[in-house]
């Protein structure tokens, strides 16, 4: 395609595009096998977040992080103490009201962030690492290894996410630890798929082949030459995935398969509020917490994705749910 033709989109929407990975399949410079990948280690996070949505997301996330870290100082009451009149409406002593057992809703939702946020980030990091490693192995070695790993991934994709998480969590028994295992088991395959296809394109690109001809070991070519192409798409996918992890976790506790009472948890609080329509605040505020924090991660992930190369962005996909 000649550059003079108008096939290129007339407006380039991503000013930061040159900073992030180019097409992973681009042959690069065969004479200098290491060069094309190295710069791609850096994602310019601050620049990516200069889009309005990214900025809003970052601010909301920062607020939530502060709330979670300083929760014991901010929460006015003991989240477990049943020391107030039941179902007191918002305002007055309990700014967001009290629940069916007379516990302070505000204290409970603040403290709940301390379990939900670290758990979600932890599970996403674990599944990103697990999925990428498995995907890289599948993509790099191919053949039987590839078949086995990817068929297991297909099997996970054969279920809607929350359904499989529900089945696993139910089998393991309720509890935060088991919910985390369930989410880990259902979310690694998307990383495996993305990593696998990126590794396969990179593996066949000329600079990697050139590296192998220079005598690089499989390990060196995976970590030094191929990994740089994979890191930023995986980071973007992971950012978007924290949101889904929080939603899945909330869904599991809504089904009483997550955090065990009386530990405060947003999903469980909404579950409690379903039968209490007159006391709308019990369900409303925890849901608002989930919405804002998932939104923050989606805003950030979306603006990061916009700065990715379009082909890679398509791999990462619009549909990470």
């Amino acid at each position, binding site marked *: 395609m000649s550059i003079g033709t*108008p*096939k*290129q*989109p007339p*407006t380039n*929407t991503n000013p930061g595009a040159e900073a992030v990975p180019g097409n992973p399949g681009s042959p690069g410079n065969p004479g200098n096998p290491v060069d094309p990948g190295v710069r791609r280690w850096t994602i310019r996070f601050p620049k990516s977040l200069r889009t309005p*949505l990214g900025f809003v997301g970052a601010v909301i996330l920062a607020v939530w992080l502060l709330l979670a870290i300083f929760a014991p100082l901010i929460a006015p009451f003991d989240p477990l103490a049943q020391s107030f009149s039941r179902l007191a409406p918002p305002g007055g002593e309990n700014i967001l009201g009290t629940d069916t057992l007379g516990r302070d809703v505000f204290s409970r939702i603040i403290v709940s962030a301390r379990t939900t946020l670290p758990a979600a980030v932890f599970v996403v990091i674990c599944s990103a690492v697990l999925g990428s490693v498995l995907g890289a192995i599948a993509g790099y070695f191919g053949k039987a290894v590839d078949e086995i790993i990817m*068929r297991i991934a*297909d*099997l996970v994709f*054969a*279920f*809607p*996410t*929350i*359904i*499989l998480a*529900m*089945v*696993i969590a*139910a*089998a*393991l*028994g*309720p509890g935060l630890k088991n919910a985390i295992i369930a989410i880990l088991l259902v979310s690694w395959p998307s990383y495996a798929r993305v990593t696998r296809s990126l590794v396969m394109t990179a593996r066949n690109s000329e600079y990697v082949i050139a590296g192998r001809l220079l005598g690089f070991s499989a390990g060196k070519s995976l970590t030094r030459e191929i990994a740089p192409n994979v890191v930023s798409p995986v980071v973007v996918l992971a950012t978007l995935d924290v*949101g889904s992890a929080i*939603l899945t976790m*909330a*869904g599991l506790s*809504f*089904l*009483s*398969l997550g955090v065990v009472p009386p530990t405060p948890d947003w*999903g469980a609080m*909404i*579950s409690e*509020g*379903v039968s209490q*329509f007159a006391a*709308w605040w019990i*369900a*409303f505020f*925890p*849901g608002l917490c*989930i*919405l804002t924090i*998932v*939104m923050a991660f*989606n*805003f950030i992930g*979306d603006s990061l994705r916009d700065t990715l190369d379009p082909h890679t962005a*398509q791999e990462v996909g*619009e*549909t990470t*749910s």
Partner: protein
Amino acid sequence: MAEAANEGSTLAEAVPGPGASAGDAAQRIRPPKIHPLLRYVLVRIGISILLIWGVTIVTFLLTNLVPTDPVAAILGDRAAADPEIVAQTRERLGLDQPLIVQYFTYLGNLLQGDLGVSNQTRTPVLDSIGQVFPASIELGIGAILISVILGLLLGLLSALKQNTILDHAIRTLSLIGISAPTFWIATVGYFVFFFKLRVVPGAGRLDPWITPPPKVTGLYTVDALLSGQMATFTNALGHLVLPSCVLALFTIGLLTRFSRSSVLDVIRLDYVTAAKAKGLPTGTVVFKYIFRGALVPIITVVGLAFGSLLSGAVLTETVFAWNGIGQYAFRGATTLDLPVIMGVGLVIGIVYILVNFIVDLIYGFVDPRVRVR
């Protein structure tokens, strides 16, 4: 005409494989002289059967490899303390057999429609699911219709007005849409539209004083129409509105985002410029050329959207007291009724695979590159 003959010889190679998702498997297998569409369908059937088989392995392993002892769950605490009764029960349940034998017993039972018995109600799981399933189907159809129509239109609009305020607004709203927990939206929606505004009817599939129409399909709206009960039909439809809108919210966001990027991919293709160069009116260019081209990849996502609708149903039906598979699953989950949960997981997994199979078929029939040789 020598040149034309020359061109004719390259015709055979000029047939490209079907689309990316279909191509992988279809291209590897090359039996001689089968019509490409037939081959495509056969490959899809094979993949679906393998996946369903895999799903049975997953549910089997989860039921049998978990720390909780099924014998204790069945017998209750007192009987479980007696080692003799435990041993008898294990033998009766076949738990003393090797795992592989147990699996084939399990598979045999599944093939006969035996999904086990609920620990709580003692009713066969398949019977219960069969009773409640039409309710979920009705809800699912309502939600998928709303989300496909709105999602595609919003995505198309957003892409055509790329980088305008409208585009930014639609993108932001669709991001918010996929960020909201469905069961919370259900609660809030029910509170606002029923409890406060009274613009929608209350929970359930019908008002309590209305008798359900005679069962044909199990879908109240369809059955009411079939038996000519217009009042029942309007009532059922009214009850359907809020739950299906709530359920659709997430998938609208999903489909809007996907169709936007799909349309943007198509807009810059040559055939769109070629259509414009023919002086066709904008409406023709948009709907006949752009939208049709963008639709093919979108079709494959509809199956995925259906999966999130099924997940959403499990989490929202309880809020609306909608007596479907979701409420059944919710009850099973909250009472840790393992046979129920596994049964629901198995059935939803199979339904999801079948839906994706149908979606793949539609895809094959829509795209002439798969359909015509």
